[in-house]
């Protein structure tokens, strides 16, 4: 339904249209570069994020190697500082956020019964600008002489406190890359957040009311809201930092009367909602896996949903808990202390409902379930140490100690990464038609679980023994040796578990030894399992009519008044779900107009890192980037979303 065809096409436009056609075949590299298919974009997100996880993990391993014994000289303090900064930034912005985005992309349209997201090309733009930003930021490593051990990466910590982040104290370009790189990735997230908010509100299949949506979709919606309102704040903070660094502005310049507390407010005003942006998708994944493998519906669905909304809401009122020791005063600390403590209530509701879901079920301890259970358990520990943080007087001792490091790895690794791995094992069959090897999966889980606790549990103790974070070395006699040794051994155990995962991947997909999955290998509950595996590019041959929560389950099973389950006559419902029988797929696929591939999102996204590079090195490059951006945007706006054939 293109509105207008631009009358005459230039040669360039012809060439582009040609390339677009080539991309439309569905094969080859071009078709991936120009793709606007949410499933492919999701996979691109997932693969990129996993590779960046290896990068961030490698950085962590270097950190742990340095700290394995007191006074070790593996890294210089300069290298160490850049590594932990990049480790934090990578894991938060380039691993957990994009991995969550991968799941949004892969699942949301399928779960709500849509053929794509509301703005497929904006979606592609999100991905490419994320990738551009991530490569740009990581490229900073190479801006000094890396082969003689000089890293060029940012070095003011992941929250880049001013005035340390100003050029007087962190000379070089590292923090410029930080400010601009995060800016680009923030824009990418904002675009994604807007896209998914609209998609979820607007693109639901008939009958898919809000309260029939899977919890994962709900959590995506809440996360999108958080992104939409949090990203502009960090964008402004980063702009202010950029202006201070590149154009001598005074936002944080104390010589001119600037107030460093402003940065802290802005960062944490974004930063705390951000940590829930990191965890809520994981909560969503857990809420999908637990019911499937307990073979029961989610206990207290509306309460799980509302507690998620409550968490999103409350996350705006607690940011000062990162600033207890800055001397904001008794009133601020008391008010934010109480609000922080209370955030345990909605989180607890989720935990208890998950336990309620498992209670009395028929629990299949398959790999995804193991990861989900593991995530609940470890997250609980992290959440509870969060409560000890929120006690203001007690936090005076813990702030900026390893106790904090323990807390946030328990929630981030123990909560988010575990759940995300669970999600990978759970949904991979849907998109690849193959099952990961179960044994290797269990080996990975146990290695990871043991390694994780071995790494991060001792950090509680070293923290309480007075070990500050972000120190590149410590002297012996502080009583920290044993705990650090344990942490380091644990870190390498985690690395081993990741290698097992890579091996599993190779075994399953490269050697193609993974078992064929079939359409519904887990006897699952939500709509995506009603589709063939792998999911056809048009998703639903026929947009489904939704009648209830867990619609797909109810096509397979009937439930009597007492809640006893009676199977529906075998097969019937499932076939209908495919929109007809076998032969129907191909034909059905033909009549459907899907958005055509487009190169313009990529071109526009490419403009951003180019502009950023120009800002740092040579203003002459800026117009080049700007031109790319403008060309990309205009091409995008003028090109019909669907090429008529």
């Amino acid at each position, binding site marked *: 339904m293109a509105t207008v065809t631009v009358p005459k096409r230039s040669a360039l436009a012809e060439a582009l249209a040609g390339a677009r056609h080539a991309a439309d075949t569905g094969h080859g590299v071009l078709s991936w570069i120009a793709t606007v298919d949410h499933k492919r974009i999701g996979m691109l997100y997932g693969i990129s994020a996993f590779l960046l996880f290896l990068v961030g993990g490698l950085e962590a391993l270097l950190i742990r190697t340095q700290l394995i014994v007191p006074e070790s000289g593996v890294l210089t303090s300069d290298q160490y500082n850049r590594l932990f900064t990049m480790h934090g930034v990578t894991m938060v912005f380039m691993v957990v956020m994009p991995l969550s985005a991968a799941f949004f992309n892969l699942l949301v349209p399928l779960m709500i019964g849509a053929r794509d997201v509301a703005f497929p090309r904006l979606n592609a733009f999100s991905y490419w600008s994320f990738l551009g930003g991530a490569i740009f930021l990581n490229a900073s490593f190479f801006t000094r002489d890396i082969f003689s051990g000089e890293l060029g990466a940012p070095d003011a910590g992941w929250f880049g406190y001013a005035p340390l982040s100003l050029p007087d104290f962190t000379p070089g370009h590292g923090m410029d890359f930080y400010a601009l790189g995060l800016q680009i990735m923030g824009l990418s997230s904002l675009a994604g957040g807007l896209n998914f908010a609209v998609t979820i509100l607007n693109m639901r299949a008939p009958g898919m009311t809000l309260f029939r949506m899977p919890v994962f979709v709900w959590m995506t919606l809440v996360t999108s809201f958080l992104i939409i309102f949090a990203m502009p704040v960090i964008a402004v903070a980063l702009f202010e930092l950029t202006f201070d660094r590149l154009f001598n502005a005074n936002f944080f310049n104390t010589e001119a009367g600037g107030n*460093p507390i402003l940065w802290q407010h802005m960062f944490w005003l974004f930063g705390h909602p951000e940590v829930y942006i990191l965890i809520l998708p994981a909560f969503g994944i857990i809420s999908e896996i637990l019911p499937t493998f307990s073979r029961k519906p989610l206990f207290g669905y509306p309460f799980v949903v509302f507690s998620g909304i409550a968490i999103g809401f409350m996350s705006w009122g607690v940011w000062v808990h990162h600033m207890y020791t800055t*001397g904001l005063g008794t009133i601020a600390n008391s008010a934010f202390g109480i609000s922080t403590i209370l955030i345990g209530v909605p989180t607890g509701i989720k935990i208890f409902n998950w336990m309620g879901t498992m209670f*009395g079920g028929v629990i299949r301890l398959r790999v995804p379930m193991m990861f989900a259970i593991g995530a609940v358990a470890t997250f609980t520990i992290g959440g509870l140490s969060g409560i000890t943080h929120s006690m203001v007087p007690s936090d005076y001792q813990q702030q900026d100690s390893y106790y904090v490091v323990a807390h946030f790895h328990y929630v981030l690794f123990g909560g988010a990464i575990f759940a995300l791995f669970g999600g990978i094992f759970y949904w991979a069959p849907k998109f690849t038609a193959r099952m990961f090897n179960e044994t290797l999966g269990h080996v990975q889980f146990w290695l990871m679980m043991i390694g994780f606790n071995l790494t991060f549990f001792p950090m509680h103790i070293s923290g309480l023994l007075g070990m500050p974070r972000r120190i590149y070395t410590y002297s012996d006699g502080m009583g920290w040796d044993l705990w650090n040794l344990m942490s380091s051994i644990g870190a390498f155990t985690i690395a081993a578990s990741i290698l097992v995962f890579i091996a599993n991947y190779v075994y399953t997909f490269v050697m193609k030894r993974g078992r064929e999955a079939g359409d519904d290998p887990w006897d699952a509950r939500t709509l995506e399992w009603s589709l063939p595996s792998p999911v056809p590019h048009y998703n639903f041959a026929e947009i489904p009519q939704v009648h209830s929560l867990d619609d797909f389950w109810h096509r397979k099973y009937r439930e009597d008044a007492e809640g006893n389950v009676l199977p529906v*006559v075998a097969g*019937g*419902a499932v076939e209908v779900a495919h929109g007809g029988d076998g032969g129907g797929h191909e034909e059905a696929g033909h009549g459907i107009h899907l958005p055509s591939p487009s190169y313009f999102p990529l071109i526009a996204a490419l403009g951003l890192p180019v502009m950023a590079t120009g800002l740092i090195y040579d203003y002459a490059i800026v117009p080049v980037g700007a031109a790319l951006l403008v060309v990309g945007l205009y091409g995008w706006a003028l090109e019909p979303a669907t090429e008529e054939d």
Partner: protein
Amino acid sequence: MPRGRNVGYSLTAWWGVDLHAAAISSLANVTQTLRVLRRNRARLPLLLVLLALLALVLSGCTTDTPQNTFDTKGEVADAQAKSFLIAMWPAIVIMIGVLGGIVLIALRWRERDPNQPPPKQVHGNTRLEIAWTIAPAVLLLAIGVPMVAQIADLGREPADDAYIINVVGQRYSWLFEYPEEIDSEGKPIQTVNEAHIPVGREVSFQLRSVDVIHSFWVPKLGGKRDVFPCNLVTPEPEAPPTPHGERPPCDGGQMNILWLKADEPGSFSGQCAEYCGLEHARMTMTIHADAQADFDAWVKEKLAGSSGGGN
């Protein structure tokens, strides 16, 4: 096409579950679980490992290490350790409850037989929901209210007779200045990275930095307070010893005041706790708490010696 019962959103449906039945059956289930566990000796090693870990943790807390936050030597640190425990004990109980619950449930209701039919479909229970909303809220408020009292306590201004020490943080050392001890040249005595304080008297540390943010932390005496950049509006020499509580104005940043009190003599090590650059790890200090007589002697010695200089 046959379809399942519509279980879409309806509040009344959530009340439909019979609470009594649920409660009784769950009680029965728990006892059964315990029985299963008792029979299953294989789980014993797991328990032992957990106990060993706990022992390790406890031993860690009692080790005499220089910056142990539980080996408290002053009332501030005492109060803060207490505050931690107020939160920690309930947290540990909840942790054991939740983790234990999850493991027990997973074991008790594990699928025994691949052909096992799906269980009874329970969608929720509103009374339970209300219970596990209210109970944590009450518990949290119960620890929150004493917390506010403690914040006010620790956040009060230093006592009138508090001993004032100006602390200037700079990359990567601590400069201590004793405005109450003026030498013949009219300058306060100064020390670097080591400070002497009188035992049993509140000491008001007036914290400011000349470059980036640092954080002043002597764990055995008390928690940290950030050291913000602060260019005094009134240049230093003329700045009179500040009246307690009133922070001298500074351009940008602010001056923070932290009061601490040592209960017994000793040397307590401390360290910068806010990442401040290359040698953040080595921005350490030692606070010597001396009995009043020893302290006076130290001051006299310092005043007699050449003004300035280290310790």
